[in-house]
Every structure is written in C-alpha cells, then in structure tokens.
C-alpha cells in the first residue's frame, strides 16, 4: 500500500508534463496529499510489531542476470522518514502556490525529488536504493538553477557536484559490498559477515559518501550556498528531506553493513559531528543574510543527527532518527518564513535592513510562525526539537560525555543566533528611514504589486508544519514507539547499549 507513494508521485510528475498549466499546482497538491495520506494510513494501520523489522511490502524480480530485485520494505525508521517526506512535500507545494514562471516544469522536478526520496526510504535492494538516491540529484539542479535566486547557477552546480561526489564513494562502497557478498539485498547483507580488514576501509568510504549529503562538517559548504540559491520550495525540500537521505542511508546502509568498521570509526564521526554543531552555529551567528543563518543552522542540527548515530546505542540512534523528522519539519518552516513570507514581500533578506522594518506589525502571522519555528529550533520543551536533542544527548552521555559538554555550549550558540535572527527580522526597532507601515502591508518596494498579505495557502502550509512539530514535541512516543524497536533490530549496537 505504502509503495504507492512512489508510483503516485512519479505518475503525477509524468502527468504534469502533458497537462495544461492551470492544472499543474492542483495536480501537484493532490499528488503530495495522496502521498501524505498513504503515509498516515500506514502509520495508523501497521501494527507496531511489524515495524520492528524491515518487513517486505513488494518483491518482484527485476534484473535477474545480476540478482537485482524490485524490493520494498517498511520499518519504523522508514515510516518516520516517509511521514516527514509527505509533510514537507505538501507544505512545499503550498508554499509554491503562486509561482508563475514555468509552473509545470517546476512541479515536475519537485515531484521527482519527492518520489526519489520515498523510493530511497523504502527500498531494500541496494541497487534500487542507489537508483533512487542518484535520481534525486539532478532534479535539484534544475529546481535551483532555473527557479532560484542569489547566485543560483553557482549554488546549483556546487550542490549537485557535491552530491555526486558523495555518490561516487557510495558507488564504490556498494560495488565492494556487492562483489564481496554476492548479493544486493540489504536484509541479506545485514547478516553477512564482511572481513574486518575490508570493513576498516569500506565503512569510512561509504559513510563519508552519505555524510556529504547530510552536511558533515568539512564537506558541508554546499548546504548554505545551495539553500540560499534555491527557491523557497527548493530549500524546504533540501533541508527537509534531501539532507535526511544522507543520514538515513548512513544508518541503514553504511552502519548496518559494516558494523565493525563503524565501531572503529564512530568516535571520529562524533568528533566531526561536534565540530559541525559548534562551528556552524558560530558561523551562523555572524551571517547577515537570513537564509545563510538558517542554512548554517541546518548544518548544526544535522550535526546532532550524526552525533546521535555515532553514539551507537539505542537511545542515541533513535534520537537521531527523531531529529531527522524534527529538523525536516522545523527547517522547512524556517525556510518558508525566510524565503516565502519575508523575502517575497520585502525583497531583502539582509538582517540589518529587516531590522529597520519592524515586520512583526506588517506580517503578524509570519512573525508568529517564525517565533514558533525558532522556539522549536532552539529546543524549547514542547517542540520536537527538544525531544529529539535531549534523547540524543542522553544517548551520547553514555558514550562520549565530553561531547555532551561541548555540544551543550554549542546549543547556547544555536539559541544565540536563532534569537538574533528572530529579533532582527521581526522585532527590530522601527528605524526613522522607513515609511510607516500598515497592517498587512510592506511598503519597501513600490513597484512590487503582488499580493502582500499572507495567503491562505501559506497559512495552511505553515500550520501543517507547526502542528507536526508540536504533536511530536508533546508526545514523542508517537514516533519513538515505532523507531526504537527498529533500531534495536540493527546489529551495529554496542553490547549493553
């Protein structure tokens, strides 16, 4: 049933190419809602017991010459990721509602990314997995290069090349695993005992390949530039789902296939993750472009995911998966406010310029959304960010107590830059140079005749995301009950963890 998320989304994308443009956004919305609904249905109807193992949904032979199968499966982790994909996809379409230029093409590329993500989260066969994984890369290029803003061609190319660069290492890792074990089935490979000397080098190759997409510290620079260059929908998708592909794949493939290699290298991953958290937060503190601030905050938050994975115990890894969900929702919300609600109406993302506008009066709904998103991002209890990060830190405490201290300091930095961005963008003192503003109007750009108050589509999209972060924040067991058994079934866990 949930396999239909992939087919519907691909089908929608293809159909978009042939339909007149009046239908484009409705079709895209319908498709993404169908995807989310299927995810929800699976969430409600699948018994929690079934989610403890990677349970097969579809399995048909595909390329039998080389032993490839079309094989999809579902467990708690995939289900969580499918949910966040569905939520982000729907809100992304809502936030691109009044796009005017080359609409069909835009939604075509967008749906391809979404479909590819569904595919990655559900596939068991390593070849199939890699097909979906690489499929996501190119549509991102077009989304950004055609529809983006600041320095778009550079940002798009950088992001694509980084992704493909990571993909190259993943390719090597997959080939090595395939040739050694003679199988491409993840469930079989997870039972296979790879020789330790092989794991020693194959694990870092594969893990780094995936971690590029997750924005691991020295290889993270594509993320801020890419986020800034991308159209709002593009950054929402990038931060919301695409970065998660990397961390999900690192967990599902790299760590699960080469557990001994992982144990050898896990402390180095933790080091990189902690550096990423602190460094990105410090950099974000000094940015003047709002989107850059959020871009670096993404890198920082993804550092938590990597730290959680590196702990190698149930709590830490489950927290990492929860953080993937939580950050997917929160980052999408932050980018929606910055790129859609603010930038489209003021035509600036410069924090100093925004400080002079006192936007909280002009755009009260946007201000409200941004406050919620910032609170969730900082980790105020009651939002999903808090639930996820605290679980990760508890997990990390068992393995790397030092890391927790440093990360704690990093969290202060996160709070600092988020509050700074919040204050500057919405609650700056109204400067003398700026015209007096009425409710719902921004008078910075007189030539700008677009609809200026927050549209209904934007409100619905924002509410959906806020609801998701609140629901999980208030009752994290909703997801954790499904994630933890699935994590416990993996074999890389340190004994007694």
């Amino acid at each position, binding site marked *: 049933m949930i396999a239909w998320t992939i087919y519907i989304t691909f089908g929608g994308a293809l159909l978009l190419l042939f339909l007149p443009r009046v239908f484009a956004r409705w079709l895209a919305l319908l498709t993404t809602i169908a995807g989310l609904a299927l995810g929800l249905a699976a969430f409600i109807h699948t018994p929690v017991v079934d989610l403890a193992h990677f349970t097969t949904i579809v399995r048909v032979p595909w*390329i039998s010459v*080389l032993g490839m199968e079309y094989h999809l499966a579902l467990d708690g982790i995939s289900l969580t990721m499918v949910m966040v994909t569905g939520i982000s996809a729907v809100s992304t379409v809502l936030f691109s509602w009044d796009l005017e230029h080359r609409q069909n093409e835009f939604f075509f590329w967008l749906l391809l990314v979404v479909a590819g993500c569904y595919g990655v989260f559900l596939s068991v066969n390593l070849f199939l997995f890699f097909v979906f994984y690489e499929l996501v890369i190119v549509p991102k290029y077009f989304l950004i290069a055609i529809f983006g803003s600041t320095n778009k061609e550079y940002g798009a*190319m950088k992001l694509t090349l980084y992704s493909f660069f990571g993909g190259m290492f993943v*390719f090597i890792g997959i080939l090595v695993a395939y040739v050694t074990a003679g199988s491409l089935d993840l469930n079989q490979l997870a039972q296979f005992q790879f020789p330790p000397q092989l794991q020693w080098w194959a694990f870092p190759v594969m893990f780094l390949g995936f971690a590029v997409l997750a924005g691991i510290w020295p290889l993270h620079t594509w993320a801020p530039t890419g986020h800034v260059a991308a159209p709002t929908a593009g950054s929402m998708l990038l931060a919301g789902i695409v970065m998660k592909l990397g961390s999900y794949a690192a967990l599902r493939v790299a760590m699960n296939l080469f557990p001994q290699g992982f144990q050898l290298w896990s402390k180095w991953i933790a080091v990189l993750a902690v550096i990423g958290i602190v460094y990105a937060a410090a950099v974000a503190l000094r940015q003047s472009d709002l989107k850059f601030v959020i871009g670096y905050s993404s890198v920082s938050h993804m550092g938590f995911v990597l730290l959680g994975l590196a702990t190698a115990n149930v709590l830490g890894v489950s927290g990492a998966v929860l953080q993937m969900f939580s950050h997917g929702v929160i980052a999408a919300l932050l980018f929606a406010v910055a790129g859609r609600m603010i930038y489209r109406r003021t035509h600036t993302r410069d924090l100093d310029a925004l400080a002079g506008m006192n936007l909280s009066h002009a755009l009260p709904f946007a201000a409200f959304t941004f406050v919620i998103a910032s609170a969730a991002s900082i980790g105020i209890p009651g939002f999903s960010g808090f639930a996820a990060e605290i679980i990760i830190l508890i997990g990390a405490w068992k393995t790397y107590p030092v890391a927790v201290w440093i990360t704690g300091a990093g969290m202060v930095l996160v709070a600092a830059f988020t509050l700074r961005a919040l204050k500057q963008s919405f609650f700056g003192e109204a400067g003398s140079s700026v015209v007096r503003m009425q409710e719902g109007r921004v008078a910075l750009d007189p030539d700008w005749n677009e609809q200026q108050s927050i549209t209904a589509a934007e409100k619905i999209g924002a509410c959906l995301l806020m609801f998701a972060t609140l629901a999980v924040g208030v009752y994290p067991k909703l997801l954790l009950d499904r994630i933890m058994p699935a994590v416990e079934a993996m074999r890389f866990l340190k004994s007694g963890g």
Partner: protein
Amino acid sequence: MSYLELLKLASPEAIVVITVLGVLTIGLTTGREAAGATVSTAQPTRNASRRSSTRSAALCSFVAVLGLAVAIGAVLMLPRNATLFGGMLVITPLTSLFKIICIALAVFTVLLTTSEKSLRHPGEFLAIVLLATVGLMLLVGSEELLMIFIGLELLGLSLYVMAAFDKSDLRSAEAGLKYFLFGSTSSAFTLFGISLIYGMSGTTGLAAISAKLATTTVQPLLAVGVVMTLVGFAFKIAAAPFHLWAPDAYQGAPVPSAAFIASGSKVASFVVLGKIVLLGFAPVHGSAAWHGMVAGWSPVLAVLAAFSILLGNLVALAQSNVRRLLAYSAVAHGGYTLLGLVAGGRDGFSAALFYTTTYAITLVGAFGVVGFVRRETGGDDLSNFSGLCSRSPLMAGCMAIFMLSLAGIPPLAGFFGKFYLFSAALRAVPNYGLLWLVALALFGSFISLYYYLMVLKFIFVDKWAEAGADHRSLVTDHVLQKSAICLLAAAVLLLGVMPEILAAQILAAIQ
C-alpha cells in the same frame, strides 16, 4: 564448400550490397537531372528541381531503409552457428545480435540523413553509409585476422568519405583528411601487428592463434605484435593517446557521418577488439591488478583506459562546442568500456558490449539533436543550444535524457551500464585488484557530470538571445527525424529501466 551455401550464410551482407547498388542507381537517375537543372535554369524551374531532388532523396532513403530492414530479416533467418573458411565468416548468436544492432544504427543514421540539406548527393551518401554498414557486418562476423582487416578497411574508407562529404564546408574536408591520415596510419600499425602475430603463430584464425600462443612463452616479438594490433584498434575506438582525430572528425563531419562514426564504428570495433583479445590473445592475458601486474594485453588496455578516462573528461570540461565536447566524452566512454575488456571473461565482455551499445544509441540521438539545433540556428556551439527548451521542449527533453544517460544518472541506460561494467571489473580480479581503475572511472564520471550539466544548463536555464522568429520560419518540421530521436530517447529510458532486455540477450549470446 559450395558458393550457394556461402551466399546463404552471407545473405545479409549481400542484401545490403545489392541495396547499395539500388540506391546508387536511383541517386544517379533521379538526382543528377535535378542537380543539372539547379545549375542551368532560373527561378520557376528551380523550385521544381528542388522538389524533384527532395523526392529523389526521399526515395533513396526509403530504399536504403527497406534494404536494411530486409537485411535484419535475413540475419534472423541465419542458422544459429556456422563457420566458413576456417573462421573467415562466423555465425554465432553474438554475431547475429550485433549485426542487427549495427544495421539498426545504420537505419537511424539514414533517418538523420533525410533532413540534412547540406548533403548534395544523398544517393551517393546513403550508398556509402550502407557500404560502411557492410564493413561493420564483416567485422562483427569474422574470427580471422585477414578478414577483420578487410572489414576494417572497408569501414574505414567509407567513413573517410562520409566525413569529407560536405563539399561546401572547409571543416568537413579537414575532418575527412585528418580522419584519413590517422586512420591509415593506424591501419598500418594493425597490419604490422597482424603480420608479426602471423609470423609467430603461422596462422590468422583467432582460435588457432590462441592454441599456438598457449604453447609458447611470451617473447619480445610477440609483445610487439600484440601491442601494435592494440594500437591500431585504440585509434579506431579513439582511446587516448590515439584520439587526436576524434575532436575534428566529430566537429567537422556532416552530422549523420559523425553519428555513424561515433556509434556503429565504435560498437563493431569493440566487438572485434573483444574477440581478438579474449579469444585470440587469451593466453597472454596478463593482469592489471594494482599489486600484481603481469605483462600481457590487459595492463596495456588498463593504461589506455586510465589515460582515456582522465584526458577525455578533463579536456571535455574546456569545450565550448557541443560536438567537440561529445568527442572528448567519447574518448572517456571508450575508456570506461575498455574496463570490461580488461576484466575479461563472459561478464566483462558482455558488460562492455552492453555499455558500448547503449552508448551508441545515446550518441546517435544526441547527434540527431545537434543536427536539429544546427539547422535551426546555424551552429552547434553551446550558445546555440541556449533556450532550446522554449523553442522545442521535445528536443530539449530528449537531449536531457541523452546527456544524463551519458553522465550515468539513473534510471537511464548509462547508469545500469556503468554499474554492470564496474561490478564486472571489480569481480574479475580477486582481492579488488582493479579497484584503482574502477575508482578512477567513477572519478571520471563525477567530472563528466559537470560538462553534461553545462549543456543542459544552456538548454534549460539560459535564454535565447537572438530574435528566434526569423529562424523559426526557416525550419520545416522534420517529423521523421524528430520521431527517430524520440524513439532513441525512449530506448535509452527503456534500457535503463529494464536493462535485462538487452543484457540477457548479450550474456546468452556469449558462450
């Protein structure tokens, strides 16, 4: 051995040769008057003559396609296995399959020719395309060095003429001349190598050579012979550092000729090269493993592959002409394909053949789009492609499929081809001996994504600067050519989603 049986087994070749004669006759009888009329008369008759020459061209292409279709039918009627004259003409499932593939590529080349206005004598051009096809079929269907050489020469001489066919274009003449000079030098190398091997083994049949080599030790003379033969083929498949003719030939030759040089000639060369090294030189395989190189042909091919991948991809980065870019990328793709031969064995050979076939299909399509853009805008630089997606979304979409397949993006044929190739290479040598070459190839395909994306950037992102309206009015809609390109794009997509259609066939055909 009766001549009747020879005729029966060589019926596909015979049919194509007869078609050549037919096309030549039609071209001579209908095309010439038209050409004469163009020179002598004034406006009113000119239109009429143009119409009659178009009709003649259409008739020629129709006969050519018909002949090729009948030839495919004849290939299907052939017995499964047969050998004539000690391997001069061999029929196996493999040769039949690749004869069909070569003929199909020729059909698409003919379809691309139909809308090419710069070729003044379509009948003669098509006749030469068909002759080249006969060369391909002889090459594919022989396991004897002399016959292979004759096939190479027939193919080569036809291709030189095809490259230089556009008499009004200086570049075409340059392409033809360069191709001819390099090609004839490479033929000399091949012939020299063959003669040395003949001297060593006393035979020209591949199986017999293999049996002979197995009993002798590796001598310097034999090494020279093997390397010389390989050098000749390296010219043919444009492997670095023997690739120098390729950029000019790809850029200067008329579009259909370039497409045929890049596709048919390459496929057949790889089939033959594979047969020679894997069948004839099997005892001197050697090893290209990183820590255990053993002298033989496989380290030679491995070095050629490494050079081609690096040089092709790096130089392609700097190109501003799409055809030149495709030429350098062809060098790189030749390198990838060599990986399969280096790996050897049934898996490696079939992976190489799968890759080169899908590559050929992709490149014919890409050249089709280049030809379309060239007619529309008068050039084939990257800037001529800008804004193609608003001028012709269909062609832009097809080009995207071709470029992304070349870059190895799923779910297109190039991706599966690479996976198959690299996994075969990694598996062939124990202890990941070929990992260095596989990693290099993957690095190469990482680089290549940049320049393929640049082509797509011009097509999808950039705007068409000049006023497009007057150009558009000149362009007549070439339904036939467009549908041929779409068919190729669909094939690339299909072979990516269901590669088993072809891969299983090839694997079954290699015994």
